[in-house]
């Protein structure tokens, strides 16, 4: 009787385990984006053709050429990604990875892989996910909600400026966003390599996109693996849009926010308190 009990228990548990394993294998080798299904096996062929030189055959960012390039290529085995729509500490969605591959990363050696077919890129995303067991263990996070953008009025930009001061963005990014804040020179990424903060005055695209919603996501999810934290716990969505509008005025680009700001500035510049350390310091 007890032998049967033992047997039944062990069998049930074994069945449970194998079921979990099959499901995990399924999610590990396939990925979905739009109406496309990416397969890791096909992605491995593409990876070998396009990606090994930098990311390495083991996906750890130690490709043949990695020693000569800066910033270093992504280490997929760590499963820490900069450009996500999901909260800090969680994995990006398949769509986030697809966009990263397609867009590339400006001011790095990661090119925009748009000439590859969509299927090839989706296959690559599926393969990249095989480099870390975290994809199987926890899966992607839940994307944050980006509410509709508020109008870019001088009040919004002014409030954004106050937030830039209060959240102490200037400590790294500098009072004018030139990437020359007091802490900028000592910043290191999670692998203890020096890393500069974004310089708004360069006008280059952000690493994680170029639109206002992209900018919103950058500081509301943080850039994992870098010093850039998430401000999701500290900023309400309306505050976040105000900050987006102000940040746009720091860039030398013909954005609507810059136009509004530069029209308002000549008559109101005197009211502005300088950004930087509080008085008395």
């Amino acid at each position, binding site marked *: 009787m007890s032998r049967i009990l033992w047997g039944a228990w062990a069998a049930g548990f074994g069945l449970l385990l194998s079921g979990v394993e099959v499901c995990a294998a399924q999610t590990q080798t396939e990925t979905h984006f739009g109406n496309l299904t990416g397969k890791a096996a096909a992605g491995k062929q593409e990876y070998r053709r396009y990606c090994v030189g930098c990311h390495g055959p083991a996906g750890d960012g130690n490709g043949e050429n990695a020693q000569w390039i800066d910033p270093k290529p992504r280490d997929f085995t760590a499963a*820490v990604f900069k450009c996500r729509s999901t909260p800090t500490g969680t994995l990006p969605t398949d769509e986030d990875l697809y966009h990263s591959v397609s867009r590339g990363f400006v001011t790095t050696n990661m090119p925009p892989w748009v000439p590859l077919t969509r299927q090839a890129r989706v296959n690559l995303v599926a393969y990249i996910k095989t480099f870390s067991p975290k994809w199987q263990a926890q899966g992607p996070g839940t994307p944050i909600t980006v509410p509709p953008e508020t109008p870019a009025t001088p009040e919004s930009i002014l409030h954004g400026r106050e937030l830039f001061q209060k959240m102490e963005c200037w400590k790294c990014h500098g009072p004018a966003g030139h990437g020359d804040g007091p802490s900028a020179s000592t910043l290191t990424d999670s692998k203890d390599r020096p890393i500069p903060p974004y310089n708004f005055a360069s006008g280059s695209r952000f690493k994680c996109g170029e639109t206002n919603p992209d900018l919103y996501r950058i500081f509301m999810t943080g850039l994992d693996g870098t010093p850039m934290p998430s401000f999701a716990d500290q900023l309400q969505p309306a505050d976040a849009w105000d900050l987006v509008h102000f940040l746009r005025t720091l860039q030398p680009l013909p954005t609507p926010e810059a136009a509004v700001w530069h029209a308002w500035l000549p008559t109101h510049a005197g009211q502005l308190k300088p950004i930087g350390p509080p008085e008395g310091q």
Partner: protein
Amino acid sequence: MRTNLVSCLALSAAATAAIGAVSRPATNPGTITGHVTFTGTPPKMRPIDMAKEPSCAKQHSTPIMTESVVTGPGNALGNVVVYISAGDQSAGAPTQAVRYDQKGCEYIPHVAVLQVGQPLEIYNDDQTSHNIHPLAKVNSEWNKSQPPGAPPIKATYDKPEFIAVKCNVHPWMHGNFAVLTTPHHALTGQDGTFALEGLSPGKYTVTAWHERFGTQTQEVTVEGGKPATADFVMKATPY
């Protein structure tokens, strides 16, 4: 028949360990005490220049020293996490939160010891923003900003790991989270002593971890009522 039932129950217990089971109270609890010292030359601790953060600098009449190696009289080694790494029957996370403060631009305590699933509360007691960036590799790595006056940041970790913590804005700030599975742990002070209490009789593996000098283990047997000791001698290197 009875032994079969016991083995069946043991199997069930093992299978459902992840869900969490009630820890069995220790009967006739014993204690492992000990002393952690070092041999060799430890690195010199250096004073921290907080000129870039005047609001913190003025909280320290003299500059504080770096804390990666804290020593005491008689070559005692502080900030060593000593814990039971094998033989511990208890499981389950306590609900008591562990507090981690950022005060005067340093982490207090330097090492926060907590259990898997135990809540961690991180406070910013300073006039400046900090970003709290635990560099987990097994657990998830996250990075959050915490301005002055913000509510505490709450976190838990679900896998055991020793996690380095840093603040990117203030590069001199270094701390650690020691996430353990066992409730039997201790952190040595400057005198290097520790006591692991509430242990039922049995054989245990005790592990001592230091952030610079590595890990050592010892086998210790606890007999009912009698105290057991385990001393550790870490090899210090200047760099």
